[in-house]
C-alpha cells in the first residue's frame, strides 16, 4: 500500500477542524504499521501556513490548492479539483470527516471516481492483508456494518470524535506541493450566495467532548439557562430531545437521536429525558452517560453509568457548583 492514505483536510478561517486532526493522527498510526505514507490535501484561500500544522499532525506530504474560488466550500468546485488530484495521486484510501461538507462532497466524488464509500464510520482497521476495513453504524446505531472493498481507492467519511488526536510534533517535516485549482466550468452550477455561522461559544454538538442535554422535563425554553450554566463550566455543548424540539424550546439542530444528530461524546448528561429508543439511538455510543430524572423507572437509567433520581431543577444547579469546585481546583 505504498501510495498512501489521503486525508481531505477541512479548514474554516485557517483553523484545521478537529476531525481532520483526528484522521491524520489515526492514519499516521496505520501508516506506521503498513509502511504507508500519509498525504494531506487542503483546499481554500490563503492557506499556505497550514502546511506545518498538517506535517506536525502526521502528514508526509501536503498538497495545497490555494484559490479564491475555493475560499468557501462548494460541491462543484471541490469535486472538480479533488477528482483530478485523486486520479493523479492514486492513493489507496481517501478519508474525510463526516461533517456537513464531508457528507455533501464524498458521495459526489465517489460517484465521479466510480468507487464505493463507507459513510459515517466509527471504526477503521487493517486486516491481515493490510486492507482497510471500516465499521459503520446503521439503523442509527442499533447495528453495525463492517465493510471493505477491492476497488482502489477505498473511500470513507469518519464520524468526528472517533479517534483521539495525537499531540503535534513540530519537528516533523513534510513535502509540500502546491497544485493549481483546475476547476471545470461545468462544475460551477451552484452559486453560494451567503454563509451564516451562528456565533456560539459552545462546541458543535457532533464534535463536543461533553454534552448536556435537556428533554421534556425542562418544562420550557427559559429553563435551558440552567443547562447552559452547567455546560459552560465544563466546556460542553447543549443538546435536546425531540420532545423539547417539537415543543419549540430548541431548534432542530440541537436534536439528538434517530432523526437528529448522532453523537458520541466522552460524557453525555441527560436531564429530564426518558430514554426513548429513538433518543438512545443517537447517543447510545457515548463513553459515559449520566441521567438526572425524577422517575426512578425511566428507561434512561437502564443505559446510564451514573444516575441521580431527583428533580433536575434542584440537582442541576448543585452539580454546576460541584463542577465549578472541580474546575477551580
Amino acid at each position: 500500500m505504498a501510495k498512501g492514505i489521503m486525508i481531505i483536510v477541512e479548514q474554516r478561517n485557517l483553523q484545521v477542524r478537529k476531525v481532520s486532526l483526528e484522521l491524520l493522527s489515526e492514519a499516521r498510526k496505520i501508516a506506521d504499521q503498513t509502511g504507508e505514507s500519509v498525504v494531506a490535501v487542503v483546499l481554500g484561500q490563503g492557506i499556505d501556513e497550514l502546511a506545518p500544522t498538517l506535517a506536525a499532525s502526521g502528514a508526509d506530504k501536503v498538497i495545497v490548492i490555494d484559490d479564491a474560488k475555493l475560499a468557501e466550500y462548494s460541491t462543484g468546485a471541490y469535486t472538480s479539483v479533488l477528482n483530478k488530484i485523486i486520479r493523479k495521486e492514486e492513493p489507496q484510501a481517501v478519508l474525510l470527516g463526516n461533517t456537513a461538507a464531508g457528507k455533501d462532497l464524498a458521495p459526489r466524488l465517489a460517484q465521479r471516481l466510480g468507487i464505493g464509500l463507507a459513510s459515517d464510520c466509527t471504526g477503521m482497521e487493517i486486516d491481515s492483508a493490510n486492507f482497510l476495513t471500516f465499521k459503520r453504524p446503521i439503523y442509527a446505531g442499533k447495528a453495525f456494518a463492517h465493510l471493505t472493498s477491492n476497488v482502489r481507492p477505498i473511500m470513507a467519511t469518519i464520524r468526528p470524535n472517533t479517534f483521539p488526536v495525537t499531540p503535534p510534533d513540530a519537528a516533523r517535516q513534510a513535502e509540500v506541493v502546491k497544485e493549481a485549482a483546475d476547476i471545470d466550468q461545468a462544475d460551477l452550477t451552484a452559486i453560494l450566495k451567503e454563509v451564516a455561522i451562528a456565533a456560539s461559544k459552545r462546541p458543535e454538538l457532533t464534535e463536543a467532548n461533553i454534552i448536556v442535554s435537556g428533554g421534556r422535563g425542562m418544562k420550557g425554553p427559559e429553563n435551558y439557562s440552567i443547562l447552559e450554566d452547567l455546560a459552560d463550566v465544563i466546556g460542553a455543548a447543549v443538546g435536546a430531545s425531540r420532545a423539547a424540539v417539537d415543543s419549540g424550546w430548541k431548534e432542530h439542530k440541537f436534536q439528538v437521536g434517530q432523526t437528529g444528530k448522532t453523537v458520541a461524546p466522552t460524557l453525555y448528561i441527560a436531564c429530564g429525558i426518558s430514554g426513548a429508543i429513538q433518543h438512545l439511538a443517537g447517543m447510545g455510543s457515548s463513553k459515559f452517560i449520566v441521567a438526572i430524572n425524577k422517575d426512578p423507572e425511566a428507561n434512561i437509567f437502564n443505559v446510564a453509568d451514573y444516575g441521580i433520581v431527583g428533580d433536575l431543577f434542584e440537582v442541576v444547579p448543585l452539580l454546576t457548583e460541584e463542577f465549578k469546585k472541580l474546575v477551580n481546583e
Partner: protein
Amino acid sequence: MNIVVFIKQTFDTEAKIVLDASGKIDANGVNLIINPYDEYAIEEGIRLKEKNGGEVTVVSMGGSRAQEAVRTALAMGADKGVLVSDPGLENTDEFGRAQILAKVVADIPHDVILAGRIAIDDGASQIAVRLAEALSIPSVSSVIKLEVAGTQATATREIDGGTELIEVSFPAVFTAQKGLNDPRYPSVAGIMKAKKKPLKSLTLADLGFSAGDLKMVINQYSLPTPRKAGRKIDGEPAQAASELAKLLREEAKVL
C-alpha cells in the same frame, strides 16, 4: 413544473434490530414506514406543484411492499408512481443504486428532484447526491427552505453551526432536512383517489441493468454490546451531586 420525489421504505424507528441465522439484518415482523425525511420531500414536491402547476412523480426502489409507501405518497397528492423491484437489488451498493435511479429519472421530465437527507435504516446520505452526479446536475443537501422563481431556486441548507444560501438552475436535486415543512396526512378522499393513480413497476432488466457491480462489500453485521444499568446515586440532592462530581473525576476520569 415537473417534480420527481425519491422515497425509500424503511424500518419503523421503534424497530429493534436483530440478526437472522445468516447474520443479516432480520426484517421479519418489522413495521415499515416511509423514511421520515422523504415525507418532507413529498410534501415539498406537492407544494411546488400546487403553486406552479405540473406533476409529481414518486419513485421508490425496494421490495414489493414498497408499493404501500408509493400509494401513501399518491394519497398525499403525488400524481404518478414508479416502483423498481428486483431480486438483483440485493447485490447492489450505493454506486449501483444511484446509477439505476438515474436511469429511471432520465425517462421522466424533471425540473426539481427531491429526496431525503438520509435514509434512517442502512442509509448513508449518499444516494441523492450520487444520483445528481450520475445525471450531471447540481445538488443541494440538507435543505430547510426552498424558494423557487422561474427556472431557478434559492435553497437554504444546514451546515455545521449555521446555514448557507445556494442558488441553482433547474434541473437540480434537493435533499430534505427536518424543518423544511410539516408533511400533511393523506385524506380519506386522497386515499380513494390514490388507488386509481398510475403506478408503474420496473425490473433491472427493464432499465437495461444486470445486477452485480459491487464497489463496497459488507463482510458482516454486528450488534452493539448492550449497555448495562450503572449506579444510582442516593441521598439528598446536594450530597448526590457532590458524589456524582467525585465519581466523574476519580472513577470515570472524564472531568
